[in-house]
């Protein structure tokens, strides 16, 4: 018997229900309104009075409406067919909804239950298995989707029967396993998991030890993110957060990209819907959409589903990690999620923390970031979830609660600077304020020096130092005037401008410059460093400025040309000629 109740109070999407039985915190329920049902979940229990947050508009709801509780928390449905799908925050398939407008109370199935998949067993009868062990696989697009022992299964099981090769629907039985007490359990290709709980059915979560290539120079060269690492991008509006996120979604070296559009502009998601089915993944030649899953709860969609959307996205990411894939999860923006928490906390009349956010904001954010990571699976293979979130700080102030809480949780900090955006230096990641903690990991440094070049990490610190010293020189020149400082100051400043223009800045809208593979990044960075290490001779500062402008222009043309192509070589030769004219004896 399901617990039921009746609505007693309505304030916006916070509804009180008087119940007749047991309910659990976060349990899902449906409120009947005429012939539609509105989904909600329990956020506070006080005796027989239960507060629920409704995932839809409560317009037209009245006291006395019936409520039916479901006996489980908000769950994601996991199985073949997730890839390339477009879901809302509650995992409704947006593509199978009818009509131009979203209809209230219309919930669509996340998976196609009629589609047949070609199953091949991996395990065999008599094998001993635990949760997340691979039983078999089906071909989902380009990847081998593993059918696993459900994550909910605890303890050891013995496989009693397993299906042979053949076509099966997701709800067909593919195995029967026996637990330690001798009870049989049926397994299908689909399982459900509460989105708020981390999936921990793996052997070990070590410290990250290799980087994830993104093709963005200011990230890969200056502040690399680890595979299985965490990072965040705070920035005022208009600084290119979204362009940078889209660049990562297009270029990052991951098997699967999950885009959680959380409380942001609908047109930005439309860009992904429109472009990703057309764009090629340069690494595999497949269409980008073939490795993408979109979880979309835009700013005008119901607020309480925003929180659900990031958790749904993370759960799907963990599911694919358990199959041994390299998953990149992008969430834009986690501030909107925090704001949804604030709206609810406010209606619940909880005592507010800083800026009226709930007191446990910091804990909620840390918990969420902690779900990312590279893991060793039960079979020794690796799988990873790398997480990069954006933060939209109110008024561009990085001292606000969401940014500060996230800074404690994420290991890479890509601060977008208004001043860089104003002077159109994109991506506007501040080269001095930003950091990657992974550069302090010895295992990451070893990896970089082994895979790129022996002196790579020391070169990177040298490059950072040049930028920092250039900034100091610039301040001196500004205070004292062009003529009143030694020419060396100009030389120092322009060397940092060289690094800035050629390495740090990147044209996300140019077909070639948009994505730079590590090999190319190495070549250009070492070239730029060589120039920075060279001593040049100038009679006055005008000569110096003019010289570096020519060099920068030349190297920018190299960035725009096919790597080691004819044009590239032409500009490289010109550059070398140019350099010779000024080299000091």
């Amino acid at each position, binding site marked *: 018997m399901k617990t039921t109740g009746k609505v*007693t*109070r*309505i*304030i*916006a999407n916070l509804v*009180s229900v008087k119940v007749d039985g047991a309910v659990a915190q976060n349990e899902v329920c449906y409120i009947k309104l005429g012939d539609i049902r509105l989904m909600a979940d329990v956020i506070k229990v006080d005796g027989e009075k239960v507060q629920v947050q409704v995932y839809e*508009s409560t*317009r*037209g*709801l*009245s*006291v006395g409406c019936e409520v039916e509780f479901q006996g489980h928390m908000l769950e994601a449905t996991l199985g073949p067919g997730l890839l390339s799908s*477009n879901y809302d925050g509650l995992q409704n398939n*947006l*593509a199978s909804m009818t*009509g*131009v*407008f*979203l209809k209230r109370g219309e919930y669509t199935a996340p998976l196609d239950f009629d589609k047949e998949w070609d199953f091949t067993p991996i395990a065999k009868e008599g094998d001993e298995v635990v949760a997340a062990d691979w039983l078999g696989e089906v071909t989902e697009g380009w990847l081998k989707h593993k059918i696993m022992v459900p994550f909910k299964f605890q303890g050891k099981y013995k496989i009693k029967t397993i299906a042979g090769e053949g076509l099966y629907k997701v709800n067909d039985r593919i195995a029967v396993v026996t637990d330690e007490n001798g009870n049989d359990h049926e397994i299908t290709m689909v399982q459900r998991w509460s989105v708020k709980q981390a999936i921990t059915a793996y052997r070990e979560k070590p410290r990250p030890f290799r980087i994830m290539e993104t093709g963005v120079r200011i990230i890969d060269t200056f502040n690399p993110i680890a595979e299985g690492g965490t990072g965040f991008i705070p920035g*005022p*509006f*208009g600084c290119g957060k*979204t362009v940078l996120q889209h660049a990562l979604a297009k270029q990052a070296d991951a098997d699967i990209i999950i885009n959680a559009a959380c*409380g942001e*502009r*609908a*047109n930005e*998601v*439309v*860009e992904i*819907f429109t*472009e990703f089915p057309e764009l090629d993944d340069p690494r595999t030649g497949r269409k980008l959409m073939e490795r993408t899953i979109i979880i*979309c709860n*835009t*700013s*005008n*969609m119901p*607020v309480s589903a925003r929180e659900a959307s990031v958790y749904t996205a993370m759960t799907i990411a963990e599911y694919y990690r358990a199959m041994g894939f390299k998953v990149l999860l992008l969430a834009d923006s986690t501030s909107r999620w925090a*704001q*949804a928490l*604030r*709206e609810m906390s*406010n209606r619940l009349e909880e005592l*507010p923390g800083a*800026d*009226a956010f709930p007191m446990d904001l910091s804990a909620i954010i840390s918990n969420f970031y902690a779900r990312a990571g590279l893991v060793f699976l039960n079979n020794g293979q690796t799988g990873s979830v790398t997480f990069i979130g954006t933060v939209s700080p*109110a*008024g*561009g102030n990085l001292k606000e609660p969401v940014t500060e809480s996230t800074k404690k949780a994420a290991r890479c900090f890509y601060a977008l600077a208004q001043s860089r955006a104003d*002077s*159109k230096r994109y991506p506007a990641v501040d080269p001095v304020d930003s950091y990657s903690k992974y550069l302090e990991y010895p295992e990451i440094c070893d990896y970089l020096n082994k895979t790129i070049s022996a002196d790579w990490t020391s070169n990177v610190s040298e490059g950072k130092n040049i930028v920092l010293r250039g900034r100091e020189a610039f301040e001196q020149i500004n205070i004292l*005037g*062009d*003529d009143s400082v030694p020419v060396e100051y100009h030389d120092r400043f322009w060397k940092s401008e060289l690094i800035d223009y050629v390495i740090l800045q990147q044209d996300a*809208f140019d077909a070639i410059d948009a994505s730079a593979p590590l090999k190319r990044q190495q070549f250009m960075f070492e070239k730029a460093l060589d120039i920075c290490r060279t001593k040049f001779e100038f009679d006055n500062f*005008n000569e110096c400025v003019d010289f570096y*402008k020519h060099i*920068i*222009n030349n190297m920018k043309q190299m960035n*725009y040309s096919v790597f080691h192509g004819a044009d590239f070589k032409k500009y490289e030769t010109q550059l070398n000629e140019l350099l010779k004219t000024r080299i000091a004896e």
Partner: protein
Amino acid sequence: MAKAFQKIYTQLEAITKATVSLHAQNVTNEELATVDGRLAQVIKIDGDLVSLQVFAGTEGIPTNAEVVFMGEPPTLKVGDGLAGRFFNAYGKPIDGGVEPEGEKRETGGPSVNPFRRKQPSQIIPTGIAGIDLNNTLVSGQKIPFFADPDQPYNNVMSLVALRAQVDKIILGGMGLSNDDFLFFKKSFENAGALDKIICFVNTTDNPPVERLLIPDMALAAAEYFAVDKNEKVLVLLTDMTLYADALSIVSNRMDQIPSKDSMPGSLYSDLAKIYEKAVQLPDGGSITIIAVTTLSGGDITHAIPDNTGYITEGQLYLRRDSDTGKVVIDPFRSLSRLKQLVIGKQTREDHPQVMNAAIRLYADASNAKTKMENGFDLTDYDERALNFAKDYSESILSIDININTVEMLDRTWALFGKYFSQTEAAIKQDLMDKYWKG
């Protein structure tokens, strides 16, 4: 007009400046009612205690006022008869005409399924270089002017609206001064464009809370023309700061804990619900929103412009250029996020690079100016940059110039050739080979 099933109550329990509460049965959330003849909306139901927000304020309402529930949320009668008409916040005509016939539709309705949206891809030309060249407007876009109260934002907005090639222009005026309202009316009349204009107006003479109805009314009308008639609709919302102020009044009366700048914690979602109505529909219709957000002392970190900036697809700033005395759209701070979808595609191939180079050189001029003001010597380059900036501002940027994008690009190339070398312009070589005017 009371109907048979309507229940009438005459006992108010509580009255605040903006709300009343009473005991009532079978009331639905967000339905409308009249309290002493004034329009009100249900905002809270606790058992049989119902709270209503009275749009016109509660001054003079007695505890025995008559309360009639209407059993439905706010609606607008939509039809072709809306065109050319002027309405108040309740959708009642204020131009002396009769109420147009049409189908009754709920305002503040559901969102478009993001998966059914089309990517905006049509440029809306305005002839103003500060927009077409540097911050291109695209159909289905939402973009506000961030302006100080003393800037001529309403004039610029009406100029943009009248030059824009669209089927309908819908003005939502919130806290518009009567003078400004008459200005809009007159400029629409003078342009002979009245048949494609629809106005929903709340002037400063009207109660502030009524403003909350205006955007939903304007957008319900817009959705009719865009969805049912596949028309290109441009919606003008001025001034959204006054709308947000009205929100904060209501939330304050509801005893909600304010967040930044005394604004309600839900400000972002409240504004997003309005702006996200901007859409490119699959069957060709579109809603484009141009809004005005007035700033206080140019402060864009205040909660209203800040939240707006995160929602809208860019923002436009006005500036009086001190060198030429002309009003221009500020090339540095203004931004159209959707311009990438059309520039160099619907416009000439050199558009993106020319735009960026011109702004970079204009920025060099601004640095040179600072240098000059600080008493440092100017280099030859600085002098050339300054002259370029003056010319650029006068012959291209100024909003009284009305030219097409090809002409804008040609004029910019001419200025590059006049003041700079190719190395200084630093544009892709193949474009310079093709368009450079030495």
